[in-house]
């Protein structure tokens, strides 16, 4: 940045001066001091070398893209590519997926012996059109559920960046798009997609903890929390432990693990407070009360410690492929009985997340719902920060 020249200061001609004395004669003002002061204030200081370097640092950062190719998450479950372009803010997370479309296995076809329903049986075989529809539907559902749920903001700072120009580090952000990219070979995952009527679905799952992470060190730390992932130069991704069903792109109901369970009232509890805790919605105290009138009695304000309230919890709704995509990002299940941890309420999984401890938690994408919370972007954030280090981002 060059040095600025002080502006010309025009002298005031006596004939144009507007000042007049009380008797009408013009007065020549002495403005030389004002001119000196003005001139001094207009002199710009040269930017320091540190300031220049700081500006160059951010300019350089923004001039390139940052990538992670075949990034395997610390727990070995997840694998994806990531590309971040600071100039546009676009951050694309791609899972390359090989689809292995399979007709219903003989063990399932045997279910129709003695009750051959032609409609059901036809569902056990794929047409080419159905295969293409499955791929595009999955791409649509993953984008709908996972993309643009959280913005990752740059938290890096260089105090020497003091030139009042744009951008500054805090202006930078990553706007995440998640995508499935169908490939014919060399994918991060290979998924067997089984043709079946939805009533006869097999278990849908992604088994990914055999991704070759030997180049990233041990897969789990002694405390159970996995270390940061890394790119794998020579991936070994031909695992076959992933299975979907033909109708896994369709929204379906997921039974609550808390339905029919009981909550024992503690001293100080109110129905409103209990509903707030269980459902994150205190106004649902009425449902609790209606379902437990026989226990509580005629006055909903009079609940007693030791009262056992039975919970009536409706199903949540979820598209299975969107949930399974979370596993491809390296995330554990968060429903009771699932996950890398004990699977009990509130247990800590291998990825550091917790299984659901109250019904409200069941709306999370890695339980039975479709809420993508900040915790579900943890591996994306980890991968981004690995690519842009020492520049870092946070949600």
């Amino acid at each position, binding site marked *: 940045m060059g040095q600025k020249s002080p502006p010309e200061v025009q002298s005031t001609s006596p004939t144009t001066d507007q000042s007049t004395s009380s008797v009408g004669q013009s007065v020549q003002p002495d403005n030389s001091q004002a001119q000196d002061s003005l001139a001094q204030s207009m002199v710009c200081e040269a930017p320091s070398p540190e300031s220049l370097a700081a500006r160059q640092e951010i300019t350089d950062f923004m001039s390139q893209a940052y990538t992670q190719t075949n990034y395997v998450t610390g727990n070995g479950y997840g694998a994806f590519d990531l590309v971040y372009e600071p100039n546009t803010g676009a951050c694309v997370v791609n899972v390359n997926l090989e689809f292995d479309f399979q007709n219903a296995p003989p063990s399932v076809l045997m279910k*129709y012996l003695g009750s051959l329903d032609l409609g059901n049986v036809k569902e056990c075989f794929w*047409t080419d059109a159905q295969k293409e529809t499955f791929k595009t539907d999955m791409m649509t559902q993953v984008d709908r559920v996972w993309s643009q749920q959280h913005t990752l903001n740059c938290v890096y700072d260089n105090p020497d960046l003091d030139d009042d120009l744009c951008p500054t580090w805090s202006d930078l952000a990553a706007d995440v798009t998640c995508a499935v990219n169908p490939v014919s070979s060399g994918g991060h995952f290979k998924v067997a997609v089984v043709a079946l009527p939805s009533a006869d679905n097999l*278990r849908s799952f992604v088994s990914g903890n055999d991704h070759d992470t030997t180049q990233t060190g041990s897969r789990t730390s002694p405390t159970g929390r996995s270390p940061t992932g890394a790119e794998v130069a020579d991936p070994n991704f031909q*695992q076959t432990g992933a299975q979907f069903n033909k109708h896994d792109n369709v929204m379906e109901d997921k*039974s609550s693990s808390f339905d029919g369970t009981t909550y024992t009232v503690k001293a100080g509890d109110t129905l409103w407070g209990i509903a707030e805790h269980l459902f994150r919605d205190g106004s649902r105290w009425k449902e609790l009360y209606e379902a437990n009138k026989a226990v509580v009695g005629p006055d909903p304000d009079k609940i007693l410690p030791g009262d056992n309230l039975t919970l009536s919890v409706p199903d949540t709704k979820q598209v299975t492929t969107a949930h399974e995509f979370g*596993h491809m990002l390296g995330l554990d299940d968060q429903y009771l*009985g699932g996950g890398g941890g004990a699977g009990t309420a509130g247990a800590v999984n291998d990825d550091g997340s917790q299984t659901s401890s109250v019904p409200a938690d069941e709306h999370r994408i890695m339980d039975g719902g479709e809420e993508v919370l900040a915790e579900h972007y943890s591996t994306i954030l980890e991968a981004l920060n690995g690519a842009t280090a020492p520049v870092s981002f946070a949600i």
Partner: protein
Amino acid sequence: MLVVYEYAAKPPRSASVNFRWAITREGVYLKSQNPSGVIRPTGEDLYWYAGPWQEQKRLTPEELEGVLALVASCPLASARHLPQGSAANGDWSRLTVARPDGEVVVEVEDRADTSHEAWIAGLVALLMPELAAIREQVERS
């Protein structure tokens, strides 16, 4: 039982996908499918079924003869096939065949192996020969 096949999901709350079928020595085909929404009770075996066996069909003498021949010639060996990395949210299947020289039990976790399916395909071809034509019709559509 001559043949028993059992399928089960690992997560307790996914027990609605559990099913099993069997063929008895008398030629009765039985089946059991867990209803939608059931959750495997704590402490129950993985292969948990909410309801009893239900008779679906009685095999003809010719069909039973064919099944007995397939059972006698079953080439499978008892084994437990495990994947390279198991999925906490995956599944298990178990095929039990009462071969004349001894029972064969093949258990498979997370689709780690499909050799047992090739043998079951023989049962399907014998007992539901019409499926081949249906498959062809669908794949050509």
